[in-house]
């Protein structure tokens, strides 16, 4: 699915990723943990092609093609989805309209016909139920006046509608209470079908109680310093990151 080798990346002239390797097979869930400033969010932004995040070395193969060669929107249409830590508002653009355009762009890319307004509305309503968002949110402006939890559920709803191959969750748990976290995690788990892969970027082990990863990686100083299974997350919770950073030192 995704093969990252020796990835270097910089943001505003500052080197953040310094030789990152990761291999993700279809259906796997990989958690990325690490201290502040280790480059966790940078990874998601570089993979999704956010302007200002520049890959300076290494390679990224996504479904066999050179991901770094693709434009931001092409990556999205190819199946990369980034769930934002801080989803931005687009006033006046209804969620429904936004989602339809996005879904149509992806379908068009895949050579499929656009969905009719009626078909889409039905699909969107069903999906909003799955993340416990009232259908009235579909009519509101994108994230406009949504609470933190509503924004995150809206992100998961978009993810469900777009059916990506690789979902990157960027600290989706931040600012969520336990009930919202459960809804988000249920949403994500319902999308685990043995083919779709996930990168779950998080600060806290808590999320991984709900979304159980196949692998846990610790990112420090712009590279993976330790990899393991879900037990590693518990160990980190108990011991912090210090011992790994020092060990790498």
């Amino acid at each position, binding site marked *: 699915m995704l093969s990252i080798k020796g990835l270097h990346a910089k943001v505003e002239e500052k080197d953040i990723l310094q030789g990152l390797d990761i291999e993700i097979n279809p259906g796997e869930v990989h958690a990325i943990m690490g201290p502040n400033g280790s480059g966790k969010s940078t990874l998601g932004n570089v993979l*999704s092609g*956010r302007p200002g995040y520049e890959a300076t070395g290494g390679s990224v193969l996504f479904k066999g093609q050179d991901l770094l060669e693709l434009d931001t929107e092409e990556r999205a249409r190819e199946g990369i989805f980034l769930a934002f830590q801080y989803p931005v508002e687009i006033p006046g653009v209804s969620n429904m309209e936004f989602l339809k*355009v*996005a879904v149509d762009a992806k379908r068009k890319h895949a050579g499929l016909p656009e969905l009719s307004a009626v078909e889409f509305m039905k699909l969107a309503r069903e999906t909003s139920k799955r993340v416990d968002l009232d259908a009235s949110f579909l009519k509101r402006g994108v994230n406009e006046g949504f609470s933190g939890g509503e924004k995150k559920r809206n992100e998961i709803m978009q993810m469900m509608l*777009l059916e990506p191959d690789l979902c990157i969750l960027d600290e989706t748990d931040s600012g969520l209470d336990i009930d919202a976290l459960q809804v988000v995690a249920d949403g994500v788990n319902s999308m685990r079908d043995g083919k779709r892969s996930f990168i779950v970027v998080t600060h806290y082990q808590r999320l991984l109680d709900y979304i159980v990863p196949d692998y846990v990686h610790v990112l420090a100083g712009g590279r993976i310093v330790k990899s393991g299974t879900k037990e590693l997350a518990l160990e980190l919770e108990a011991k912090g990151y210090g011992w790994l950073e020092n060990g790498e030192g």
Partner: protein
Amino acid sequence: MTQEVENLIKTDYAAGFYTDIESDTLPPGLDENVIRFISARKEEPEWMLEWRLKAYRAWLEMEEPTWAHVHYPEIDFQSVSFYSAPKSMADRPKSLDEVDPELLATYEKLGIPLHEQEALAGVAMDVVFDSVSVVTTFREKLEEAGVIFCPISEAIRRFPDLVKQYLGTVVPQKDNYYAALNSAVFSDGSFVYIPKGVRCPMELSTYFRINELNTGQFERTLIVADEGSHVSYLEGCTAPMRDENQLHAAVVELVALDGAQIKYSTVQNWYPGDAEGKGGIYNFVTKRGVAHTNAKISWTQVETGSAVTWKYPSCILKGDNSVGEFYSVALTNNFQQADTGTKMIHLGKNTRSTIVAKGISAGQSNSSYRGLVRINPGAEGARNFTQCDSLLIGDRCGAHTFPYIESKNPSAVVEHEATTSKVSDDQMFLCQQRGLDAEKAVSMIVNGFCREVFKELPMEFAVEAGKLLEVSLEGSVG
């Protein structure tokens, strides 16, 4: 005057020597004889000629205003031709094959049906069956309701008393420089009269007046809504109109008598000039309405065209409890300049006005909102709410706001809100991460920004206006 216009005038004139229409086209220049000629061509009564001459004499004494935040080379009025008859069938393109492909590409993007494209591009057509039948049913329906909707030149002949009673009562001949010029030389325009208590059975659209396409240059419109009547009027078209006149100075007067309601919607999409800022229409418009007791006047405009726009649709809230509204979207791209806004003059008690103005600037363009809210001493309990938002695309454009508030009654409540924002990188990234390309993303964000105004437009106009913004913004990203 730019070289291009001079060339256009020259070509027109040269062509005139060799065809029958020669006598229908005046050489450039303006004097009393020109006005007499126009009036005679239109077979106007003596009083109308006098009215025009009075305006012309006033105009001679006036000076071109320079207070607007727009810059353009000085206009040499003696190099403008003030009367040209519509092009004859023989002069027009024979089919769409002879029309500028770029214009056709735009029609295509706006989704305009083929036979409408032909009409807009000025293709010579004997009859277009669809349109003709539409117009016929349309006329019959209006006549049944007692509504008058005809060219103003026809109204001057057929309904002189009505025209005399109201023409120039809202925008007097001497109102301003361009209004005076228009009063002297107006070519044609629309006249609407809605009888007492009548709800006009359909939206009146200039589009249906297909028989007088070439009236744009000095258009004069007068709409009178008698007591308790309702009318919705649509001006313009989202398609770019082919027009060879560079200078436009229109006047629109609205009279809403007691309890009447007039809704006036405009989509203005004259040629804005090319990407380098060459060419384009200069649009100097005076639009104003008077609302009597319990009457309501609502202006909605979407302005995307013209190189220079100077336009302030206004309401004089004369009667008690009268209501004025102004909803505006003004979009400028490349080197366009727009100075537009409104005036709300509160005279009556408990008068209310709402202003929602959205300015969008892209490229190296400049967009200004200029608005006046005046509460006169007698306007007990008057209220105004103004919201003025600017959206910038890129970092070479400008947005400016010039609000003037004069409140002379202590019981009045005037609110003004203003914001300036940019299409943010984060918004763009969200859209692109969801698979939208940059142009689609910008047009969607801009459409969202304009939503409050678009929802005031008649339904099909609103859809077209959205598409129009998309087309107008092309090339503004990247």
